């Protein structure tokens, strides 16, 4: 046990004394969260929109002038009918369109409720949500004005929001689970693999092997520090998403951390497997980047929706652990699901981990090749 502690201590020295490692460990998650976070909370100004006013009455004009006055929108005058609108969306000329029904004012004042259609281009989900929420709040202000301070709104305007192209709004709050998968892949797979292979390269592995410390313990004690560091990373990302990005966690923290630990262990086994199979730091790094990080970005569903991919790629995505982790984390963080909702994905992760663990154990050599 003492040997084990000494080993773990040594591993921490390595990490803490290497600025590059430290930077990747802690700079990366911070930078990623901030970059994505910035993109998310970025205020949209002068977004081009189209207004298709079929009512052309006082109420519709009042609302349009308020929208114009907000400063967030720039109304494209030439896009005035349905067919033109579709082209304008496709060419990216407008980000959002507002359609007033024929009897808007009449509906509003006589039936006490009227509808407005708000159509947004959700291929850029961040902008789409931001814009629709601006429109909604302008409409609410207008309603409040009509109510004249009454607690119950006498006249209700119901915006009927449609998201074009990406109805489920993939992206926006989804990037935190994505960043988590990426960072853990980087830290747990690449760093672990490199740190083991480095010992082979510098020859210290020879000395470690010729010692009473069991070779499998050498590998295990390499994994422990990175498990701890990865957990610190997970916590950092979660705390930042809650307190900096105001992205609350809907489900259980305990479950979230437990599932993260499982995924870290998956990554560590992958890292160890790579380190067993390679001899130089460069090769280990290349395999980690090309073989692990790239599929994580492509197939986790974080950047590109998997259901839009051709079937062969969808099948490939099933063996990418990050995909399952991504689903798990999203379910807990955003949908607030409990374990009963994610047990299948958890089981798949456990299977993948066991597979690579056994494979590593089989290919691990107690001697030099």
């Amino acid at each position, binding site marked *: 046990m003492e040997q084990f502690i000494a080993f773990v201590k040594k591993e921490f020295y390595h990490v803490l004394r290497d600025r590059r490692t430290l930077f990747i460990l802690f700079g990366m998650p911070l930078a990623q969260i901030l970059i994505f976070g910035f993109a998310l909370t970025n205020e949209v100004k002068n977004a081009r929109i189209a207004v298709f006013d079929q009512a052309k009455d006082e109420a519709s004009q009042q609302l349009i002038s308020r929208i114009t006055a907000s400063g967030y929108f720039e109304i494209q005058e030439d896009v005035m009918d349905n067919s033109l609108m579709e082209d304008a969306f496709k060419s990216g000329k407008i980000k959002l369109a507002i359609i007033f029904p024929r009897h808007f004012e009449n509906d509003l004042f006589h039936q006490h409720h009227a509808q407005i259609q708000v159509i947004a281009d959700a291929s850029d989900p961040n902008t789409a949500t931001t814009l629709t929420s601006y429109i909604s709040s302008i409409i609410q202000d207008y309603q409040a004005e009509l109510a004249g301070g009454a607690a119950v709104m006498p006249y209700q305007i119901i915006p009927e929001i449609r998201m074009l192209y990406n109805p489920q709004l993939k992206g926006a709050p989804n990037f935190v689970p994505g960043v988590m998968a990426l960072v853990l892949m980087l830290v747990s797979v690449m760093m672990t693999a490199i740190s083991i292979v480095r010992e082979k390269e510098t020859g210290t592995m*020879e000395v470690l092997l010729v010692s009473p410390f069991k070779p499998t313990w050498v590998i295990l004690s390499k994994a422990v520090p990175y498990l701890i560091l990865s957990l610190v990373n997970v916590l950092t990302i979660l705390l930042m998403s809650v307190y900096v990005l105001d992205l609350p966690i809907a489900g259980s923290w305990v479950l979230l951390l437990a599932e993260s630990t499982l995924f870290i262990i998956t990554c560590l086994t992958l890292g160890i497997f790579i380190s067993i199979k390679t001899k130089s730091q460069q090769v280990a790094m290349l395999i980690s980047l090309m073989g692990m990080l790239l599929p994580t970005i492509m197939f986790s569903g974080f950047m590109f929706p998997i259901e839009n991919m051709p079937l062969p790629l969808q099948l490939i995505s099933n063996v990418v652990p990050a995909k399952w982790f991504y689903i798990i984390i999203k379910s807990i963080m955003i949908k607030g699901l409990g374990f009963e909702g994610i047990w299948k994905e958890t089981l798949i992760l456990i299977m993948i981990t066991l597979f690579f663990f056994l494979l590593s154990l089989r290919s691990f050599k107690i001697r030099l090749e």
Partner: protein
Amino acid sequence: MVEHSASGAGSSKKSLNMIAVNHISKTYNGGAVKAVNDVSFTVDRGELFGLIGPDGAGKSSIFRMLTTLLLPDSGTATVNGYNIVTNYQQIRSSVGYMPGRFSLYQDLSIEENLHFFATLFNTTVEENYHLIADIYVQIAPFKKRRAGKLSGGMKQKLALCCALIHKPTVLFLDEPTTGVDPVSRKEFWEMLGRLKRQGITIVVSTPYMDEASLCDRIALIQQGKILSVDTPQQIIAAYPDQLYAVKAADMLRLVQILPTFRPSVNSYLFGEYIHVDALDINGDGLKDDLIRFLDAEGFKGIEVIPISPTIEDCFIKMLTS
């Protein structure tokens, strides 16, 4: 460490030899490279044994097999009575090993390296400090310095301390002096002498022939084959011919002329002299002939001295005959 004392090892296993190597061979790349070719030798308890040979002779492969890092293709070997294949765990916990490259953690300090290796071997620095004391005091003033910032000589001393800290029964040092200057090399061999007096068996490899005479016994090795195993004195005594050291004013021309003297005479540069090996011709007749020959060639300041060979001469003899 107690379990490796005489009683623990079992009296039946306790042979006179600390190391016994029996016809071991090792090939790489599926047999394409013969690194070690049917090598046998023994090392006695408490002996300072040298494997002497150039790079690529197979020294490191032999070390790695004896330290259980490589499996031999054929042959057997025991270290302290333990078989290198089946009893590898016992060997691993009782030997000290210093690989060719000083295997230290560059980003840990002297102290941290030493403590790490001590703990790894289930011991403490304090427990065996007496073993490393006179080496460690030389680097102790820099104990907070990272190993990567140390000079070659200091790294070498630290690596030796780390290999010694668990009081190994056998110490394997693979080319500890390669690339190290003559002064540091001399100091290093003095340290080895003191360790030997403490009863540690030491196996050391080196490409420097002049270090051979500092060993109790040596194995001369070239291209995976052992040329000779004996004490340095015996190897020198076994040199079959009379050797002469020849010198003249124009050494460069002397080198070129000497091969034309007699076809059966081998000559080569050796420090400030040229060594002339008379092969099977003995007696002073050769010396007089040689002086006459060089005189006739117009050399000035001719010196021809009969000398006894060094290990390097013996090695050259074995390589050329």
